[in-house]
């Protein structure tokens, strides 16, 4: 409790000092405490010393956004200070440069140099066209992501725009997959009731990727959206021991990156709103880069056998438990299942905006349900809710170690 108070005091002091010194900037804060519940009825269950299971955490963020417009060149930036409190580990505070770039406009053209956040996708629950950087669409506390280093040439003309990006030009050999050097391009246009987007990317890892997407306004109440991305090559992190029965334990981290050819990701959805203030969003998406039902089944079978080993033998329990913890790595992927169906309802009441969201994995009948309500005042925005993971113990959402999260978010920008 003292730790939380101290962290809040630090955050508020930072907020006050920075905003008063830099009056030309915009400063925002987010405080997001969460309480998590864990399931013992899952094959991934382990004692706390093998998998961290904090019951209470709090993510506290202060962001500073600003720009210095100048007739010659404009400087824009977004910095953030993150503080993570946890009931199981020491407080962690770090600083991020989310954006820092120079831009120069000339007629319809604009050149950008530096780190910038890019978002190209179409959709709500999953956006295949986010080629430059992917976002976690299921996050409970929306915060700014970290941009990519790039040189960009863009043209904004009438209702169309065109972008050519050289992403991560400073890539080193040790770069992670998400930081690989790429050439990417996007064309967007709006014609009547249609917004259309075409994207392209080339890099050594994925080779050629081509995507198309759009949204059309069907009526005053309804819109339809969809997108499709084709990748010449894609990767999956697969467990070397899954799908076989002779070897159950590994001596080192058992996941390896496996290349696949010609994959696709697609999303189709609709949104509907009415004067009664009710809104609905329905979406289906398919992601070939996620585990198939068969791949999950093989992983669950392996983990179950590893659990059985624990009870059958007293030899090397630490090694067995470490293997189960390694196996659980697959449950931390951003997109868990290939087939996904999402339904979201919300109601714009006077002060409170209740929202119900369910994400269903139809192949194993498991789901993630989020119920929340938001209240906006002039100075703050407050959200509170609960997320539950439901299904059989060998299903994707039912088999997760975590089974519920109670969350709260307080945010504002000044």
């Amino acid at each position, binding site marked *: 409790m003292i730790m939380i108070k101290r962290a809040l005091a630090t955050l508020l002091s930072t907020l006050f000092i920075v905003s008063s010194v830099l009056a030309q900037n915009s400063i925002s804060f987010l405080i997001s405490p969460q309480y998590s519940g864990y399931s013992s009825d899952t094959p991934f269950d382990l004692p706390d010393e093998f998998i961290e299971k904090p019951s209470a955490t709090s993510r506290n963020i202060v962001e500073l956004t*600003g*720009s210095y417009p100048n007739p010659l060149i404009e400087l824009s930036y*977004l910095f953030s200070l993150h503080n993570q409190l946890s009931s199981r580990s020491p407080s962690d505070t770090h600083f991020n440069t989310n954006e820092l770039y120079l831009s120069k406009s000339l007629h*319809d053209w604009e050149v950008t140099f530096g780190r910038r956040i890019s978002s190209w996708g179409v959709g709500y629950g999953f956006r295949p066209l986010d080629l430059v950087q992917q976002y976690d669409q299921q996050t409970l506390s929306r915060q700014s992501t970290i941009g990519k280093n790039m040189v960009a040439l863009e043209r904004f003309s009438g209702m169309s725009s065109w972008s050519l990006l050289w992403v991560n030009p400073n890539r080193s050999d040790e770069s992670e997959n998400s930081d690989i050097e790429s050439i990417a391009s996007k064309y967007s246009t709006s014609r009547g*009731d249609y917004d259309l987007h075409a994207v392209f990317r080339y890099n050594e890892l994925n080779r050629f990727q081509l995507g198309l997407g759009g949204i059309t306004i069907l009526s005053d109440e309804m819109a339809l959206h969809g997108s499709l991305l084709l990748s010449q090559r894609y990767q999956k992190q697969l467990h070397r021991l899954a799908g076989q029965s002779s070897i159950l334990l590994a001596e080192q981290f058992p996941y390896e990156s496996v290349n696949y050819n010609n994959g696709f990701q697609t999303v189709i959805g609709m949104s509907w709103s*009415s004067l009664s203030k009710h809104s609905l969003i329905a979406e289906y998406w398919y992601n070939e880069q996620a585990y198939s039902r068969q791949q999950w089944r093989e992983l669950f079978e392996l983990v179950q056998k590893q659990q059985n080993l624990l009870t059958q033998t007293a030899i090397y329990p630490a090694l067995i438990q470490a293997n189960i913890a390694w196996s659980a790595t697959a449950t931390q992927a951003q997109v868990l299942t290939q087939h996904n169906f999402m339904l979201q309802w919300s109601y714009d009441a006077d002060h409170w905006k209740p929202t119900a969201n369910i994400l269903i994995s139809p192949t194993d009948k498991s789901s993630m349900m989020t119920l929340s309500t938001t209240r906006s005042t002039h100075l703050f925005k407050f959200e509170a809710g609960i997320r539950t993971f439901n299904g059989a113990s060998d299903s994707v959402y039912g088999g997760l170690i975590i089974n519920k999260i109670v969350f709260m978010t307080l945010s504002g920008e000044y």
Partner: protein
Amino acid sequence: MMLLMPLVTHADTADELVYKADQYRQSSDNLKVTSLIRLYKNDKLDKERIYDVYIKPDRQSLVISRSPSEKGQRVLMLDDKFWMLLPKTKRPIRITPMQKLLGEASTGDIASMRWSEDYSAELIASHETSATGYNELQLTAKRKGVTYKSIELSLLPASNEPVQAKFYLISEKLAKIATFEMAEINGRRQVSKMTLKDEIQKNRYTVIEYISRAPHSLSGRYYNPTYLARNPSLIIR
């Protein structure tokens, strides 16, 4: 000779009357308007929001929220097309006219300040014959995507200052009644406040106060939907 001349004086058409009334709210084609919106419930202040609206000819408006709880939220309106950018996202989303109406405030009430661009007018009763003593006009939407299907507008006969406006929804239900407060601003008489009485939820009314109006012409790129995510300096100033 004088007797032979036809006794005709130029009478403004209904559309011209509405155009003149519009000048009291939007006197310039390119304008930045800062509006303070206060929503009252049972005569108590319930919500308060501030918006900057950048207006250009041909029904182009960019609405930027300045309130802390939704700072960074932007709505772009180009004719009958709408895009929204939510705070903490860099992705403008195309929205339906109905999505534009939902949310904290009806952005249609602040983004569009010229009835003459959206409605065709008909003089129902001149001030000489009307019971109110005002020129009474019936305005009918001539475009898709406008907030109201029709408006009954009362104008002062000599000056064409707006006195009252009744706003009707597509369902022909009376939604709001507006009254106007005038003041001398920057050397000319202009609408300083508009009070919108809610006729559906009768215990509510909204006061829109025009805090500042200044000629301001943004570059055309700011009205490109993709560029909506790319103007941080606009949020701050």
